[in-house]
């Protein structure tokens, strides 16, 4: 019988291991964080007019940059988890441990969400220190709810992407990066999707980030309530409910394929 408490404790192996890796490479972590802060600031400055007006545009861009920062870290950490183990040469060791794959991937997702949240909070404070962001009319509770539901969707997408390196050691990782880039392009991170060519607008409909950004901006910029953005929240919830089990199923199938064809070993 599944002992949820035990499995949850075992999933912390991944969380602890990855935070230990951050500690080990702290210098690089700080460099990447500073780069992200600077990148977010440069995007925010685009919104300002020379006369100092345009605070709404700044907030629009900052919300996009912060959300994308969080979601892309979430996607990246989950999607690259297998590839990372391949590079380190630990994939066989981790995969022959007596833990359910759900536990392993749960640990990866838990770490990704924690790490992404910490980074985003640091960037948010750094941006708030430079810009006078007016969140007086924001509905923060709704915003938080959007963030949680979108995390489910992105974990699902990340799980599907994480299977790619199991199928092809090198190309799998490349494909995951292309997926990430495509989501960035079509989801309206820094612009409204209505400015996109019509064929891209169609693609934006299948990206969970589109609904996340639309709902988050409505909540944070216009103070929208749950009721007012319920269609976006339902899409995000449905996407998460659908994609997470699908991701796990696909991952299991891909692992069996890798075990049958001898691809579950170090390479790359």
């Amino acid at each position, binding site marked *: 019988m599944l002992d949820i408490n035990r499995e949850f404790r075992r999933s912390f192996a991944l969380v602890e291991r990855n935070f*230990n890796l951050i500690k080990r490479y702290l210098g690089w972590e700080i460099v990447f964080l500073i780069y992200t802060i600077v990148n977010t600031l440069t995007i925010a400055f685009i919104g300002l007019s020379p006369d100092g007006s345009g605070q709404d545009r700044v907030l629009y861009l900052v919300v996009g940059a912060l959300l994308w920062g969080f979601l892309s870290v979430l996607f990246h950490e989950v999607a690259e988890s297998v590839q990372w183990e391949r590079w380190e040469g630990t994939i066989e060791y981790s995969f022959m441990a007596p833990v359910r794959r759900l536990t392993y991937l749960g640990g990866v997702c838990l770490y990704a969400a924690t790490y992404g949240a910490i980074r985003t909070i640091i960037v948010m404070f750094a941006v708030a220190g430079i810009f006078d962001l007016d969140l007086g009319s924001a509905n923060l509770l709704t915003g938080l709810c959007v963030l949680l539901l979108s995390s489910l969707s992105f974990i699902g997408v990340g799980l599907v992407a994480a299977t790619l390196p199991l199928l092809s050691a090198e190309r799998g990782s490349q494909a995951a990066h292309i997926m990430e880039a495509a989501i960035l392009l079509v989801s309206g991170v820094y612009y409204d999707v209505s400015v996109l060519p019509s064929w891209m607008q169609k693609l934006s409909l299948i990206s969970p980030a589109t609904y996340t950004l639309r709902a988050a901006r409505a909540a944070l910029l216009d103070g929208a309530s749950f009721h007012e953005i319920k269609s976006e929240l339902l899409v995000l919830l449905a996407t998460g409910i659908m994609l997470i089990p699908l991701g796990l199923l696909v991952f299991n199938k891909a692992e069996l394929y890798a075990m049958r*064809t001898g691809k*579950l*070993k*170090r390479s790359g």
Partner: protein
Amino acid sequence: MNEGSILSRVINRLVPKYKIVPAVEGLTFHVEPGEIFGILGPNGSGKSTLIRLISTLLLPDEGSITVFGHDVVKDRLEVRKLINRVSVDAAFFKGLSAMENLSYAARLYGLDKDVWPGMASDILSRLGLEREKLHEPLEDLSRGMQQKVAVARALLTDPLLLLLDEPTTGLDPVSKREVQDFILEEREQRGTTVVLTTHDMYEAERLCDRVAIIDHGRFVALDTPENLKLKVSGNGENVTLEEVFFVLTGKELKYNGKSECVSE
């Protein structure tokens, strides 16, 4: 390990691409609990494939492998609780210290956090690894030290079956001897069953109760080192296990005029 009969074909990417070749085929063997079972073979003969099959990392196309009554395909999770493996390349997060890597392993295997650090220190000190090395990144340690940590990591989980895939390859003679002594000690003290692959004939002779010689994915001989030597020499003349290996794998076609394969 109970009955272990393997008939396996594994798809390998060889030249030409996508050619399907049997990596191991028609292997039937049985390892007794507490036995050290050696597998000798040239590079690419199927030793590591066999270890991967037993470790649940590869699925056999045909046949079955049973570890203490559990089928490696149907009861993967159960088998994984009983085994651990040391591979030829000490597979670690090299930026992390020995203790951090062991902590990862201990958490994955659900070991008690109040118990495992003491066990790890004890195993590593028996293996001759200095205490101050435990907190240095593994990438700063020698290969021998890394391999000792790999052995400690495997034994930390108290496996009933220990799979050692060339555990001493590349180690200096002292480290090699320390690891070998430790394997013998473990078998003596805990009754651990060991399947060991090696290129080192002296190691096989020193450690193994029985040895299988594998070539092109098939066992060409399986017996005790003494019996293998007797079978090859025929006339009772002294031969080494290395000479037996050469004869049986056809790497040296003539040995006192004999070249036939010997099998059980």
